[in-house]
Every structure is written in C-alpha cells, then in structure tokens.
C-alpha cells in the first residue's frame, strides 16, 4: 500500500481524472479555433470541400486575399504581362487574377488597435483614479454614486444605440476614432471602477502615508506606490476592457463606416467570387485573435503574481 501521501492530498487516480476532464474540455473549446486557423491556411476549394479536409496542402491564399484587392483577367491579358515579381503575385495569377492594390484590412486592423488600446488605457486610467478616490476619501453619497455607476451595466449597451447614434451625429463624433474610444471607455468604466476599487481597498493606506511623509504629494504617491501595487488588478481590468472593446461589433457597425471602422464589422464583408472567401475570413479572424492573446499572455504574470504578498504583516 502506498503510505507516502497524506490523506489531505488527492489520490493519483483523482489527479489523473481531473487532468483527463481538463484535456477533454480544452479540446472541445479549441476545435472551433483550430478549425478557423486551419481554414485560413486552406485554398478556396479545400475550404468548402465535402467531406471536410482535415489533412490538406497548406496555402497562403487566404492571407494574400485578405491583404489585397484583385480583379479577374483573361488568359491573353495575363500572358501579355511581365512575369510575376514575387510569390504572392504568382499565386494570384495562377487563379487568373491580378492584384489591383492593397485591401482595407490593414487600415481596419489598425483602427481596432487604436480604438481598443486607446479605450482600454482611458478606462483603466480613469477607473484607477475614481477607484482610488472611492476607496480612500470621504465622498458624499459614496454608496449611491457607486450604485449609479454600476447601474449603467444593468442594460445591454446596445439598448441606448439610437440616442447615442443621434448624439454622435450632432457632435460630429460618428465614424471617428475619438468617438469610438469615448464610447467604449464609457461602457468599460463602470466595470473598471468596481474592479479596481476592490483591489485598492486591499492596499493598506500606510503605503501612501509613508510616501507622503517621505516628501511626495498624494498624486505622486498614487503613481509611485499605489499603482505599482495595484498591478494585479490593473492587469485583470485591462484584459476585460480590452476584450470588450476589441470584440465589440454592434456599435462598430452602427457608428463606423470608413474612417474609423474596426475589424469586427469589416471581416464578414470579405466577399469572394461566387460566395464568401472562407480562407480570407479565416485569415482575418486568426490575425484578429492575436493581439488579445498576446496582451493577455504579457499581463498574465501580473495576474498570477501577488506582488504585495508578505510586505505587510497582518
């Protein structure tokens, strides 16, 4: 009999069971994502072939189609052209097409970046200041104000789409980066204030007091002592805010068209010849996943590390 383990520790059988369940769950969640990544590397034909191809010859056609505009040409015209200068031109010509210019994807993608990171920064920054004030100062009607802030989350944001549409048109904020940053910040701010207040409450006020005694103003103490210790909360809040504004679709469809359109409303409009260009959509969606993934991985160490642990004896 194995007597080396304590009764409190799970048995090796239950550990294996747990691992098996987690693996099954992970596989189930990862299937759609891996299918999407696979589709992005298929060519137009194998993407829609039936039965679906699991093993296929990888192609970058989807990515080429995503980044370019093309037009179909006759074989005589193609023959009259000088030989293709690079691999993607060759790939497009093999489909009897020529590249007429870059697509709008890169522009939409950078709009998403600007609006996503811009509103995340604004939400976290404003949220941290407000949370600090709620956490430390005697604010009149504090509880009512906090409830009021939370109440903006009690209906789906799209419920106010019509008034916002009209307001934005009057204010000239429609289809602008600033307008979208403001909108997403407003939606995210209540979450940011509530999440960060919880984290700020956990930070003993002695730290700021020590910094203020050391000659720093309250604002300096906030930036140099409070914020670094709230990193865990800031990272978590930033990830939530980023995911929301990065993925937001409904307002983006409604309020943006040309100048400030983000990637989510753009990707489904990638139309191919005679049906949707699934590899290009797959490629767009795969690339669209990357920033949030990288952002989360970068911030993960802050989520996992309790940096205040052990510094104050309680």
């Amino acid at each position, binding site marked *: 009999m194995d007597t080396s383990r304590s009764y409190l520790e799970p048995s090796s059988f239950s550990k294996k069971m747990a691992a098996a369940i987690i693996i099954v769950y992970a596989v189930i969640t990862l299937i759609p994502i891996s299918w999407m990544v696979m589709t992005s590397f298929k060519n137009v034909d194998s993407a829609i072939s039936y039965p679906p191809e699991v093993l296929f010859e990888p192609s970058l056609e989807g990515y080429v189609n995503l980044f370019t505009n093309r037009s179909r040409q006759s074989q005589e015209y193609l023959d009259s052209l000088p030989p293709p200068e690079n691999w993607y031109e060759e790939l497009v010509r093999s489909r009897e097409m020529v590249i007429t210019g870059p697509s709008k994807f890169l522009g939409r993608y950078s709009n998403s970046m600007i609006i996503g990171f811009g509103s995340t920064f604004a939400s976290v920054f404003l949220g941290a200041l407000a949370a600090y004030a709620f956490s430390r100062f005697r604010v009149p009607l504090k509880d009512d104000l906090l409830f009021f802030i939370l109440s903006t989350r009690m209906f789906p944001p799209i419920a106010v789409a019509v008034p916002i549409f009209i307001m934005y048109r009057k204010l000239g904020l429609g289809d602008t980066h600033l307008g979208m940053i403001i909108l997403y910040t407003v939606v995210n701010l209540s979450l940011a204030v509530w999440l960060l207040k919880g984290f700020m409450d956990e930070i003993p006020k002695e730290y700021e007091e020590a910094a*203020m005694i050391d000659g*720093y103003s309250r604002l300096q103490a906030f930036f140099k002592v409070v914020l670094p*210790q709230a990193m865990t909360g800031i990272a978590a809040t930033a990830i939530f805010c980023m995911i929301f504004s990065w993925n937001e679709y409904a307002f983006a469809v409604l309020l943006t068209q040309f100048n400030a359109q983000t990637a989510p409303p753009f990707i489904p409009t990638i139309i191919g010849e005679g049906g949707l260009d699934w590899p290009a959509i797959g490629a767009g969606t795969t690339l669209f996943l990357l920033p949030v993934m990288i952002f989360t991985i970068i911030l993960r160490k802050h989520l996992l590390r309790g940096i205040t642990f*052990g510094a104050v004896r309680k």
Partner: protein
Amino acid sequence: MSQIKIVNLQKSFGDFTAVKNSNLTINDKEFFVLLGPSGCGKTTTLRMIAGLELPTSGEIYLGDEEVGMLRASERDIAFVFQLFALYPHMNVRNNLSFPLKMQGYKKSDIKNRVEEAAKLLRIDHILNSNISSLSGGDRQRVALGRALVRRPKAFLMDEPLGTLDAEFRELMCLELKKLHLDIGATTVYVTHDQLEAMSLADRIAVMDGGEILQADEPNVIYNKPKTKFVASFIGSPGMNFFEVHEGISKDQSFVNIEGAKFDIPKQLEESRGSKNFFGIRPENLTLDNNEGLKGSVFGVEYLGSRKIITVKTSLGEIKVKTDISVKVKLNENVQVKPSNNNIIIFDGETDKSLNSEFIK
C-alpha cells in the same frame, strides 16, 4: 533636530473627540513615549504631529514653526509604521533611497547616505534583497533606515515593535535605545506596552480617553502617579485601591477603612468630598499573621524572583508582591498590611492624587 510643542490640540471625528485639548512639550533630542490603552488618542496625536491627520483645533510647533495645517510632505519628519509599510515593489536599497530621490539629491549622495544608514542598522548585506524575503526584525530595521536616511527634524514611531515576536522585541528595544543615543534625534514613540515605555523613554505621557493625564520621567510616573488611572495602568499588576469613606483634611496622617486604622503620609491637601481612595502598590504590602486586613489566598503567580499573591478580602481582591520565600496555600487565611508608608490618597471626585509628604 528640534523641539515639538503642541498647544490646545483637539481632534474630533464627527461626534467623537479622539484628542481633547492637549498640551505637551517634547524637548530636543528627547525620547518621548505616548502610552495608553487602545483608543486613548495616542496614535491620533502622533498622526497629527506627522500631518497624516489635521487637527480640529490647536497648534503644533516643530522648532519655531507652526505646522498644524501643513502637509505631511512639508514637515520634514519621519514616521515608522506599525506594519512597516515598506514598498513591496522595491528592494531594500530603493526603499531606503525613495525619500532622498524626492529631495533631488545626486545619485552618488543618495548611494552614500543609504549605505551609511544601512551600516548603522547592520542591513548593508541585504540592500539588494526583496522586502518579501526579509524577517520581521530586518523589515523593522529597513523601516528605521528609511526614516533615518533623510535626517529629519523628528522621528515618530507608531508601535513599531508591536508586530514582532517577544524575543525580537526585546532585541529591537535595545537597538532602538542605542540608536537614539547614537544619533540623538527627537523621537516620539507610541505604545500600549508599559515595559517598552519604561525601558525606552526619557519621558512618558500617559493618555486615556483623549486626555494627557501625566507627562513625566518613568520613575516619577511610577512612584508619583497624578491620577488613579495612571496608578492602575502603570505597574504589573497596577496599584491596589481601597475606598475611604471619609473626607481627608490637611495634616491628616491616618485613615479608617472598614473600622481599621491605617497610617498615611502626612497630607498637604484636603479632599473635595467624603469618598476617596487609598492607593498602595503591591510591593508595598506584606503578609502578616497578627495584624492587617483579613482575607484568604485566592491565587499565586510566580514571577521568578518575586511572586504575586492575590488575597480576597472584604474590600475586594488585593494583589501583594512578595519575596519568593513566602509560602502560602490556596484558601489559606492570611492578613495583609502595608510594609511602608508609600501610600497615595486619590480624591474621589477628581481621581487626582492628593499632595502629601510622600508625593508632592
């Protein structure tokens, strides 16, 4: 370094008055302890001196400057917190240089001063360690170091040894005393522990209910308490009190308690009312077989070289501190009597001690 003076200082939180009309002068280079039970206003007083709380009324002088309404950062004082409040995201060196960075010192100056303070506190070997890896004693030293590097006008300490275990506390107590002798800085130290107060202080102020009851040297606080509270709070155990149901007049030299006659030092002051208290410290009482108050032994505590015997009498429980050689059994009938004339009469109306030949 400088003198600290508080004048008519008062602090209210809503309806609650935490500090009542306090006056205090802390001399230059003095180690001054604010002592009292929790909630007595000692920490609030300290925080007002630091600038972490603003007074409701009254003045605080640091040297010649009135600082009552100045921000903490403008006062040039250092504060050591009970929980140390070391910045966990910085290592020891950065914690120590943090106050200096704000004052715009050159990098080389900061380095020199940090290393000087570290050497003084014997933490120079852990300068590059993380705060979370330090022991309680080392954290305490780093917290002191952070106060020290700036060479402030005064050090304020809020129960800095409160979270250390007993062994460390004694050691740090010695180190603090030595440090104070080395640098001679005006220090205000808050504690509820009378032993700490007695061993560290040049002078002690005993506080209760937001009031400063007495500010004196430790031996004066112990031997000549000005109020009944000070007499009972200082000493372990505190002073014994018996009710005296008679007025005390000038030149009186005895009182009657429960029909027995007790000698007291010749009184120089008369009492206001007819109910007063007879106070005597446990070590000034002795057990006797023939005379004194009758009672039975209720408990015996050994303190190594002394023992404390609790005797139940008609006047209540009396604590007697005796020599270890005195042998008594539980429930044994004994008699208790004063062994000398170190007796203080407290006025029943004001709780203040009456002047006598013993306590002037």
